[in-house]
């Protein structure tokens, strides 16, 4: 197993061109904290972008930051926080969940399109990628978009490469839209609602004119793992409001009044709110994942969320809902039967899944994301070939044989 970790884009391009010429498969990685996601890649050589790092431009007045793919996400978070701004999609740190210790990179987060609680109202990581440089599977430098906030020139390759898990090109530089961080935050918590009523409360909150920025539902045991919520000793629906102080004070009270039908409601103050949403972001309510367990991430229409929770319960798993009920995180025993049960429920709900963590043998043999219908799978193959003609970049990561 050899590892290449060049610092310069030209060297990355040369390494890929070389691999292309010899049809040598490459495992693309940032800091390699996400190799356990989806299917295992069969490649003897790893091409790491972790040394291709550094913020190349930050214009707070223009709401834009560009950085090389290997830049640690934490460094970017610190740089924007210093100017009172934030990464809009609130990307999670899944290190604990995935059992990885290293610091994740911007490139990794974008390549996996990972977004946190704010995704439900403010868009995904991919929504804020304004521009990209990347190296395709032939070793050519390509770019798309730019460092401006509105751009419809040509096909939007940024959206295609975000979330492509390194199977189309090695992303080398990313231009990210950022926004001011809100002055304060508060959370309305309504305890004692089962999944169905809980999601109904979240829908009512997201459908109210009070600018709710995140909405999650935790079963009793999952809530108990978060100190600020343990006292409820019950399942709890959580709704976050972020803005200037007067707005947060006004809206959280109005929201509480609007939702009295669902229960009394308690307003959680700024400091514990920040801790609790970070925990929701990182899927911490699931607790530690044991060696024989697997982790699924599921996206469905919010009203289908309670059905997914029921499917997880039936397997004796742990689970909770974010994104107003539309994102389900599930931990359960790592087995093909459990995978079948969960994916059947997701399929019935018209949603999608990602197998986020499982033993290698298992994840090599399962549909880690939903298979595409034949007509779309044929397009997928042709588009893959359009970027990576020798099929050398992260082979097998998404689908067997691709």
């Amino acid at each position, binding site marked *: 197993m050899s590892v290449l970790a060049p610092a310069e884009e030209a060297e990355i391009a040369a390494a890929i061109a070389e691999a292309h010429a010899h049809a040598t498969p490459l495992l693309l990685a940032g800091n390699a904290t996400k190799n356990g996601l989806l299917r295992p890649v069969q490649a003897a050589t790893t091409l790491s972008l972790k040394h291709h790092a550094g913020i190349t431009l930050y214009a707070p007045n*223009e709401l834009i930051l560009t950085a090389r793919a290997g830049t640690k996400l934490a460094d970017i978070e610190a740089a924007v926080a210093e100017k009172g701004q934030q990464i809009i999609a609130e990307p999670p740190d899944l290190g604990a969940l995935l059992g990885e210790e290293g610091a994740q990179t911007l490139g990794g987060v974008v390549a996996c399109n990972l977004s946190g609680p704010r*995704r439900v109202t403010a868009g995904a990581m991919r929504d804020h990628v304004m521009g990209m440089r990347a190296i395709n599977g032939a070793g050519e430098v390509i*770019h798309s978009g730019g460092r401006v*906030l*509105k751009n419809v020139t040509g096909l*939007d390759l940024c959206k295609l490469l*975000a*979330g492509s898990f390194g199977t189309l090109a090695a992303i080398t530089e990313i231009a990210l839209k950022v926004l001011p961080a809100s002055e304060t935050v508060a959370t309305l918590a309504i305890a004692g609602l089962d999944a169905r009523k809980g999601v109904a409360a979240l829908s009512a909150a997201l459908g109210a004119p009070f*600018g709710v920025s995140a909405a999650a539902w935790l079963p009793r045991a999952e809530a108990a793992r978060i100190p600020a919520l343990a006292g409820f000793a019950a399942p709890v629906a959580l709704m976050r409001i972020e803005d200037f102080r007067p707005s947060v004070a006004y809206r959280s009270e109005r929201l509480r009044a609007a939702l009295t039908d669902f229960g009394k409601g308690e307003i959680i103050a700024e400091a514990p709110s920040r801790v609790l949403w970070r925990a929701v972001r990182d899927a911490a309510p699931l607790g530690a994942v044991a060696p024989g367990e697997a982790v699924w991430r599921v996206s469905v229409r919010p009203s289908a969320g309670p059905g997914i929770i029921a499917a997880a319960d039936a397997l004796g798993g742990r689970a909770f809902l974010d994104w107003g009920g539309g994102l389900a995180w599930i931990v359960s025993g790592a087995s093909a039967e459990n995978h079948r049960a969960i994916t059947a429920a997701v399929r019935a709900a018209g949603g999608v899944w990602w197998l986020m963590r499982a033993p290698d043998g298992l994840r090599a043999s399962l549909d880690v994301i939903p298979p595409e219908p034949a007509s779309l799978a044929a397009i997928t193959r042709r588009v893959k070939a359009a970027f990576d003609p020798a099929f050398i970049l992260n082979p097998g990561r998404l*689908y067997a044989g691709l």
Partner: protein
Amino acid sequence: MIRLPDPKPETLAARARIVAGLRALLPESGVIAEPLRLKPYETDGLAAYRQVPLAVALPETTEQVAAVLRFCHENGVRVVPRGAGTSLSGGALPLADAVVVGLMRMNRVLAIDYADRLAVVQAGVTNIGITEAVRAAGFFYAPDPSSQLACMIGGNVNMNSGGAHCLKYGVTANNLLGLKIVTIAGEIIEIGGAHLDAAGYDWLGLLTGSEGQLAVVTEVTVRILRSPEGARAMLAAFRSNEIAGACVDAIITSGIIPVALEFMDRPAIHACEAFAHAGYPLDAEAMLIIEVEGSIQEQDDLLARIKEICARFDPISLKVSQSAEESAAIWKGRKGAFGAVGRISPDYLCMDGTIPTGRLPEVLRRIGEMSDSYGLKVANIFHAGDGNLHPLIMFDANDPESFHRAEAFGADILKLCVEVGGCLTGEHGVGVEKRDLMPAQFTAIDLDQQRRIKTAFDPDWLLNTAKVFPLTDALAPAA
């Protein structure tokens, strides 16, 4: 003038057979082939370019779209998808040997779900039609192009259209959940659905803004949002573009993102005031319209913060609206800007580049210099928060020389946008208009990468041929 490829002689020769073939697939009135009735389809919002198509097909169902595309594919016939035909870049301009596939008969709202905050609509539903369908429940569809009374969601998806409020709510791409598409081979494919995010490749993201190059969209699942409690505008006028630009920076860096932040230069202010009598200050060099949302108290709080910032920039006037009527008056001039410029000069080109917002003063100065050297007037309207610049170049359509100068002027402005770090188009698309400028923004390798994706969807290049991509040898007209 931008060149179009030579029509395929075999297609022109087979016209009668093609029309008959289409008639067999569609209801009686669904195929138009009479020259007089083809005339309305000969152009779009870029009216300087005209070309009557071979025929127009008006399917009513996704299955009919599939049948038409399969037929065209089998017969090597080019296809130009069309919504309302309001494209300002010539995106829906027909070709002489192409069948226009118009989606306007697919105009039904299929489902609305308030709990999951989405609506499923056919591609021919107008942009405003979506908001109208959900307004009674207090909801709206956020992207609001100025053409929203006419333009259709299928066109919006293919152009990734924006609007005055996209600073807060995002553009079309940020407000979609799913699509039903038909490939040129006639396959019907569902993309996305009612959930967030794609598990495999983000086809939804790729198809959005693809300008009819990849597939025909027949259904769209959009996100709908709850309307805010209220909204209110204010107006701030300044002595120079530099000062107004610095004020925009100060607002954004203070942590306030207004829902709208519109900039007008002196010629735009004068044109709009003469037209709308909105009370705009005629002694100002630049003016901002700033809108905030929320309850009355929240509006007061935000407007007070913004007013205080504006006051630091020696404004000529600052007017905070006290009512919905006053807000409407402030917006009236801006919303009527196209009509207003149209009164000064019946013919104008509406350009659409994006620049880093910090470069605005310099870009406006250079546009002013170009205006002098081309001898053509220009008024600038700018979505200041996101850097999207709309210079309106005035010319005389009866004078071909004037039109050519206007086109050259426009091209120079767009190249300037790229030069300062921006792009050729922020929301109107490349179409035919900016096709030949693409090498200013992209390398040959970039363009080939995009072309290969086009080929992956449309191997014979039948869909909206000769738009977006500079003509290659295979498509270039014989000299």
